[in-house]
């Protein structure tokens, strides 16, 4: 333990604690900008670059960055001396002097950390007039980039390289011209970007934002010739409330259904339903491969999950030699789209062209996923538009509604019923747990003695377990963050020494609950933790908690698909992958 004095208050902290954290402990909140931490989730960005958190340490020549300076025994720290306040204000004024002054039109208006900082410091004018950086604007199907707003916090760069190992973004140039960019300042869409959108989730300002599809959806809703069907992902219901001032971890499933109905959607369905369907397909595929191996035949193991479009794009770009590992099952979003546009459109007697399927997702990659060519019939997409949780919140507000005042309503039938297994898809380890519940019972023919596979729960980046399938040890792994996934793929490529049978991969920290389309968590991992707890609470409260027991799922196999991994489901519910790696064209 070290003892020090911060703003005349004695503080005692563990060795290795930064001044920033020690001060927080003492109730002193030093402002930061570039600093970003997801505590307990192995993500820390502290380049010490913005210099907003500088403090005065007695005996030191210059000011010290609180985020990167460790407390020392006997240190005397001032966080609000005249020298500090002047320096901090000048630094923020400098940052603002190279930042467009267009807060009112900015996507980040109200969520911007720089805006909050300027407000907190009471900055009324910027004394420095000078050149401002200008860059070409750019967008992919998911991410918009306006680097004029970049403050060089480098969070996106850290996220893209350290956590995701995607390597699409890097700091380029130097000095005043330094900025974060894809190689050669070309389009992000032409880079190794997988549209996971985590750069957007961590960006403190409006430099990286999502591609907004609200107007597309509003237009469809206003079109009387269209039947507009909406599906909403598991992770949305545990986070949407935050946008309306509710406590993180509030479950708003019923209010969500009510709000969607009031927005004018003709059918309010649930992606949870297709999550159950996914388990049927993926679980069957897993058992098929395992059985083959047990019978001495050749089969590719481990099976990797394929619900996460960021992850799918990642392995297509980076592991073209391993395209036969992931499950061919489509993601729940796309299964839903396929069922809606094939089965349900026919059922209600309309042409698929007259149906618009909208998804509400915690995700930015879903926007790119629904635009993939293989998920459309003659240019008509299975899922027409994908909105994020944040966009939905905006839309509810634009439509003059308040989620707090919504009644509790149910989803429509038949694509609205779901089990607890589907709910937990939203958290890392959830798909694995859901699949295990079903696969175990199908494989062994026995009822699970214990439904909660706690060994695959929690916020660790990589979790492994061996599950006893009645004498057969099934080795499973769960990881989030594409760098962890990369390591897993490389391990498998090198002979799968740990003998994994089944691996779940989610691109985003904590799984979909930490998705890039979720309300901004601003680095507070407690928010993600609370969303996770809510997810398991919702599961525990569900009457049915195993996908294969969902009566509507049982019914659709009976009525339409026949059996999991059967002929029709292969046609509609499965997909295949493409080698999208960089290749050399010899001139």
């Amino acid at each position, binding site marked *: 333990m070290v003892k020090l004095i911060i703003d005349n208050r004695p503080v005692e902290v563990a060795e290795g604690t930064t001044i920033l954290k020690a001060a927080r402990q003492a109730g002193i909140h030093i402002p930061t900008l570039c600093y970003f931490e997801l505590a307990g989730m192995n993500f820390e960005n502290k*380049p*010490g*670059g*913005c*210099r*907003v958190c*500088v403090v005065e340490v007695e005996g030191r020549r*210059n*000011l010290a*960055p609180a985020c*990167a*300076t*460790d407390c020392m025994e006997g240190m005397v720290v001032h966080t609000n001396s005249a*020298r500090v306040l*002047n*320096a901090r204000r*000048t*630094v923020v004024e*400098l*940052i603002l*002097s*190279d930042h467009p002054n267009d807060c009112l039109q900015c996507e980040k208006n109200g969520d911007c950390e720089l805006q909050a900082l300027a407000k907190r410091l009471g900055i009324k004018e910027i*004394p*420095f007039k*000078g*050149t401002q950086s200008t860059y070409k604007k750019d967008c992919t199907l998911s991410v918009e980039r306006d680097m004029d707003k970049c*403050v*060089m916090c480098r969070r996106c760069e850290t996220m893209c390289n350290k956590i995701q190992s995607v390597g699409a973004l890097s*700091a380029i*140039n*130097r*000095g*005043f*011209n*330094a900025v974060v960019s894809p190689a050669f300042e070309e389009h992000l869409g032409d880079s190794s970007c997988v549209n996971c959108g985590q750069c957007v989730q961590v960006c403190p300002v409006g430099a990286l934002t999502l591609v907004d599809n609200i107007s597309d959806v509003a237009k469809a809703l206003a079109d009387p010739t269209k039947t507009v069907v909406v599906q909403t992902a598991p992770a949305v219901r545990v986070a949407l409330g935050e946008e309306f001032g509710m406590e993180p971890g509030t479950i708003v499933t019923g209010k969500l259904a009510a709000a969607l109905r009031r927005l004018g959607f003709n059918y309010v369905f649930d992606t949870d339903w297709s999550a159950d369907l996914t388990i049927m397909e993926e679980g069957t595929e897993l058992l098929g491969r395992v059985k083959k191996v047990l019978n001495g035949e050749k089969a590719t193991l481990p099976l990797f999950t394929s619900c996460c479009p960021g992850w799918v794009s990642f392995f297509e770009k980076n592991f073209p030699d391993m395209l036969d590992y992931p499950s061919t099952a489509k993601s729940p979003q796309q299964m839903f789209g396929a069922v809606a546009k094939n089965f349900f459109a026919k059922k209600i007697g309309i042409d698929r062209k007259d149906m618009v399927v909208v998804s509400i997702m915690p995700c930015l990659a879903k926007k790119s996923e629904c635009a993939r060519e293989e998920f459309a019939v003659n240019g008509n997409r299975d899922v027409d538009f994908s909105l994020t949780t944040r966009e939905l919140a905006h839309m509810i507000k634009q439509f003059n509604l308040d989620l707090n005042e919504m009644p509790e309503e149910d989803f429509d039938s038949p694509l609205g019923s779901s089990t607890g297994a589907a709910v937990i898809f939203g958290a890392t380890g959830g798909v694995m747990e859901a699949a295990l519940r079903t696969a175990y019972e199908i494989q062994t023919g026995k009822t699970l003695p214990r439904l909660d596979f706690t060994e695959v729960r929690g916020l660790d980046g990589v979790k492994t377990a061996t599950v006893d399938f009645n004498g057969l040890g099934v080795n499973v792994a769960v990881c989030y963050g594409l760098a962890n996934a990369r390591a897993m793929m490389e391990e498998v490529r090198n002979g799968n020494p740990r003998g994994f049978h089944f691996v779940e991969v989610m691109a985003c920290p904590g799984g979909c609950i930490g998705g890039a389309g979720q309300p901004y968590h601003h680095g507070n991992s407690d928010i993600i933790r609370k969303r996770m707890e809510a997810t398991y609470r919702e599961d525990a409260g569900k009457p049915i908690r195993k996908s294969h027991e969902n009566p509507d799922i049982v019914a659709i196999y009976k009525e339409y698909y026949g059996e999991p991994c059967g002929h029709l489901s292969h046609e509609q519910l499965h997909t295949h992958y493409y080698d999208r790696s960089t290749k050399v064209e010899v001139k």
Partner: protein
Amino acid sequence: MTKIKTHVLCCGGTGCKASASDQIIDEFQNILKEKGLQDEVQVIRTGCFGFCEKGPIVKMLPDNTFYTQVKPTDVRKIVEEHIIKGRKVTDLLYLDPENKQHVSDSKHMGFYKKQLRIALRNCGFINPENIDECISRGGYEGLGKVLSEMTPQQVIDEITKSGLRGRGGAGFPTGVKWGLCAKNKADQKYVVCNADEGDPGAFMDRSIMEGDPHSIIEAMAICGYSIGATKGLVYIRAEYPLAIHRLQVAISQAREYGLLGKDILGSGFDFDIELRYGAGAFVCGEETALIHSMEGKRGEPTFKPPFPAVSGYLEKPTNVNNVETFANVPIIITKGADWFNKIGSEKSKGTKVFALAGQINNVGLIEVPMGTTLREIIYEIGGGIKGGRQFKAVQTGGPSGGCLTTKHLDTAIDYDSLMAAGSMMGSGGMVVMDETSCMVAIAKFYLEFTCEESCGKCSPCRIGNKRMLEILDKITKGNGTMEDLQELRNLAGVIKDTALCGLGQTSPNPVLSTLDNFWDEYVEHVVDKKCRAGVCKQLMHYEINPEKCIGCGACARVCPQEAISGEKKMAHHIDNMKCIKCGACHEKCKFGAIEIK
């Protein structure tokens, strides 16, 4: 066997090489052969003599005759007169600017009289590409001594006792630095030589590497032994091809002699050195940035701690010293700490090498004991200001340093006094300015450099320096206000206080020191809209004095804008609307008729 009677030392430093010293050497060899003297006279290509102003230098031994500004065509005369007939070639001797006498012996030249050469002891004396010459001067005996007679701790103690401080700029005690690194346990440690000399107008390190590469190799091995490192890396600018070549030759010779590699001198100590190339980034002189660059990353500094002594190259304990620091080490070991700490001033021991440049008569590389005054350097060694003009300022420490003025001339040079005067020792650039330099423009020049070289990582340096530059630009264009001067001061103070790395923190020094020492000039620019040095183009114009103009038309012919008109043999006139102030006419006019207003 005929005895060698004469050595001809010919400077092979970059400066002299640029003015044909290679051809001079060839010419010597040809003519000596022609005269049958090739066995009696040995021609040696050495490192820099330091007196670059008068290069190429040829020194004749043993009589110590010092020929300056030798051209290839002068060689025959030197051979025929000096070597064969023993007569000095007077017109190639150095002409003392004071008494207009030719001086033949370098010892009696003002330039060398006040110097004490420790780091440069072998520069200009040995053939740097011949390890035998180095050994016969006692090279590698320091290494031998530590390996056979001293414990690592004793080496660190000796260096600490000597009082040697880092010559790269900040002046951190070298022995203490080694001690910190020695303390950390690791399976691998590294010794890094910072040879990324990025200060514009400084070439000390380059000259040492070109003139005495073995001293660096030896010192790195000594350091390796004392801190427990077996690997050394030299981070050297790719723009220094000759220094790279000489180091490569020296490393391979040292390996051949077993002075690098396994089991050096039978002691069981292994050490080897590799080169890493810088790619043009001033900030890589900062040790954490340098380490990142060696790791194949952008050369951005990181916050310290952790210090490289704890986590450096590849996250292993690493000791980084600069070239000149290392060059002092072997001789401290052989001659002892007590010998070394008698030289210099109270808190700064030994000598310092400076690259003396600018508006001074004797441009060159000098080494003086710490505590020598600026006046001694500028007037006695430097031979005073060029063209008899007035001294105005001297800049030390490059972009991190400041501009000192007449009142500082008697400042004794050491780390602390320069810092106190608002400048910095820096790596050793020393640029002398006279009345033709505008101090606002000089501050702007340095800031332009800093802006160009800022890594862009921290906001104060990335944006703050840019804003300061914009304000200075405004002032030099005559649009500045007194509030701007206020803002400059505030910004400079905040950048100093908040920038991430040493380079950012010192980047406002040129501005702050000129504000302090040349306030009047700033005010003149702002209030009177006048640049007394005639440098700021927007604040001056050219006029033809009709009294002096004879109407020769030379000015009109060189004017790129056709801005000058006039009848032949009549006074001409400049159209200031067309004039771009390139100054071509001013330089062309032989009659001084074109005046700066």
